[in-house]
């Protein structure tokens, strides 16, 4: 008996429902993910949570008078300038344009500060707190952490963050405090994600992890000093984000598999 071959044009002495050797040469592909990889990817979310908590901590410090606006501005300026020099090689715009942009922002925020200060005078503090919490949570959800999913939308995320900071700033006492908080918010929500991406792609895992630890430490210190009641929240976020969820992801990844075979639509390779 002749050997069976996988062709239709040859008349073969086998029944039509014969199952040949070459049947099902499919490749089942599954991306293996270790706990380490899942943990490392989750640190981006940790940093984002920390940046939101820093904003809240500074707000608490400013509103209760433990913190001076000048201190906050110095802190922001030092970090901003340091970050700028680290990432300078990656930027396409000229230094002149960047300075112009910074001046524009500073002028805009300082002009807007008196308006922002009296913006929510008629609204209850509880409403503002609830609103800010919701907005910051939404910001964390929509932030771009490097995964290609539909929910990611950096523009929406940025706007939500700025809106939340406006809500908070409107409860502050003086124009200068409002100005300081808004400047910090722009730095945290507009510049920090870009810096984080730079760390991820250019500086390597070790430096990035070190950087994450620095951010977490600064956040913890800030909360300890100015908003001790939020410490449990930070602890909960850290445990969930870096402990439970990566473990769950690794456990569930086992069940996810894609089957590829010759029936798949060929992809047009672009050059």
């Amino acid at each position, binding site marked *: 008996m002749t050997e069976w071959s996988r062709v*239709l044009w040859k008349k073969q002495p086998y*029944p*039509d*429902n014969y199952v040949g050797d070459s049947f*099902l040469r499919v490749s089942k592909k599954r991306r293996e993910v270790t706990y380490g990889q899942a943990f490392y990817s989750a640190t981006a979310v940790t940093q984002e949570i920390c940046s939101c908590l820093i904003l809240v901590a500074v707000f608490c410090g400013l509103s209760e008078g433990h913190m001076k606006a000048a201190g906050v501005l110095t802190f922001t300026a030092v970090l901003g300038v340091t970050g700028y020099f680290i990432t300078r090689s990656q930027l396409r715009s000229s230094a002149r344009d960047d300075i112009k942009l910074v001046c524009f922002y500073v002028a805009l925020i300082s002009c807007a500060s008196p308006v922002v200060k009296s913006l929510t005078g008629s609204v209850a503090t509880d409403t503002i707190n609830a609103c800010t919490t919701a907005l910051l949570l939404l910001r964390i959800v929509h932030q771009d952490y490097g995964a290609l999913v539909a929910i990611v939308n950096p523009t929406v995320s940025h706007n939500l963050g700025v809106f939340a900071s406006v809500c908070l700033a409107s409860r502050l006492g003086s124009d200068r405090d409002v100005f300081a908080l808004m400047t910090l918010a722009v730095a945290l929500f507009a510049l920090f994600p870009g810096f984080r991406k730079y760390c991820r792609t250019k500086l390597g895992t070790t430096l990035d992890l070190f950087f994450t630890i620095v951010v977490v430490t600064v956040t913890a210190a800030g909360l300890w000093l100015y908003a001790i009641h939020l410490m449990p929240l930070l602890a909960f976020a850290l445990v969930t984000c870096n402990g439970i969820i990566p473990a769950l992801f690794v456990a569930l990844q086992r069940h996810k598999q*894609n089957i590829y075979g*010759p*029936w798949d639509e060929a992809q*047009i390779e672009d050059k």
Partner: protein
Amino acid sequence: MEAKVKKQRHVICMVSDFFYPNVGGVEEHIFQLSQCLLGRGHKVIVLTHVYGDRRGVRHMTNGLKVYYLPIQPFYSQSVLPTFITSIPLLRNIFVRERVTIIHGHSAFSTMAHEAMNLARAMGLKSVFTDHSLFGFADMSAIVTNNFLAISLADVNHCICVSYVGKENTVLRANVDQEKVSVIPNALDTQVFMPDPDQRPKDKINVIVMSRLQYRKGVDLQPEIIRRICSRYPQVNFIIGGDGPKRSILEEVRDEVGSDRLELLGAVPHANVHGVLVKGHIFLNTSLTEAFCIAICEAVCSGLQVVSTNVGGIPEVLPSRLILLAHPNVDSLTQILDVAIQREISGRRIDPWAMHREMRNLYTWPDVARRTEVVYDKVRGEESSADIYQRIPRYKKCGLLAGWFMMFLVTLQFLLLKICDRIWPVEDIDIAPDYPEGNAEWSYGEIDLNSRRHTNSTLVNGAPRISKLGQIRPTARRRIR
């Protein structure tokens, strides 16, 4: 291999949402297969839904009875899958036509799935033909695959058009491998005769025939046309077909000139051969294809074929009749180059030699004979309508879908019992069969004597030319 067998007469009911006057590959498949089965002495009826004002019962060539059921199409020519509302109507037809086998066509046809399921509930046999390939990755594929798995959990046999299709169906629908037969599509080789006088002597024409859509790789064509046109002044392109990607080809036509690239628009199937014989080379750029009858038609008409190596295409033709390329511009241009060089140097295979090789490769009588083997096999299978035996088959569908189907099957069982009470089987009139004497036309498939004496040997294989002279295909189909 001739065997003396007592031929069993089946009463087959083809069910699909897709049938004439709709045009397409599935429609043609059902029609041609039905005609050949009629020619082999079986009784065949077709069920489909209404098409505009076409409703009720129609008789087509050789007494092929078509029921256009009064069920409105709901989405892309498929009826709304209600599963239970069509039970009384379908049951009545199955009883009055004394149907023994339900043969559903196309995974997209909800009516076919409903009818096959009801057939099992009534203790009849069901066969399903899958015409298409599906991926596994995207959302719509996941949903469709789940429904298919539910539907095929209780089917007697499946038929696929290629080995790739079989693998695909086995994986998608979780069907037993032994229950899937591979029976390729066929074409009417008598229509696709080479006619070398039709093509220009000093030029080389490249023909492309497909619906102009992404799946057919139309996005690859502009760059290929540009490169080939600038390299060979004597090579022209003729593109038949219409679709959403037409505009990108119109752009190229404006670049290279309408004498180099001719766009024909939609070509009715009856005219496809007329276009094919004008060319020397046929180019197929499909990105996925279960069988691809277009390349067979081209080879049969004596054209060199350049095609992408995707899906079932490498199984269809022996390597000497086809040039395969990877689905990208570089590879396709390179292989098209080879074909053009062969054409210029005269090293190509003679068109008539190609036609002779194709002539007996994929014929409808052969498809019918092989389908008949499937029918004979399922007839012998156990087919209890007992609900205790049916329900466990759905256990493999998973927890949620499985239980849901168990519920539906139970409901179906109850409705059938109610139907039995209101319209008892004895009270349903039996439809008279189409007079057998009129169904002499047999596609050259069966010797006239063998039809008179059902005990005698069947002759399969080479068509009888004298008979075929009288046959003209009545079916028309648009170009895919």
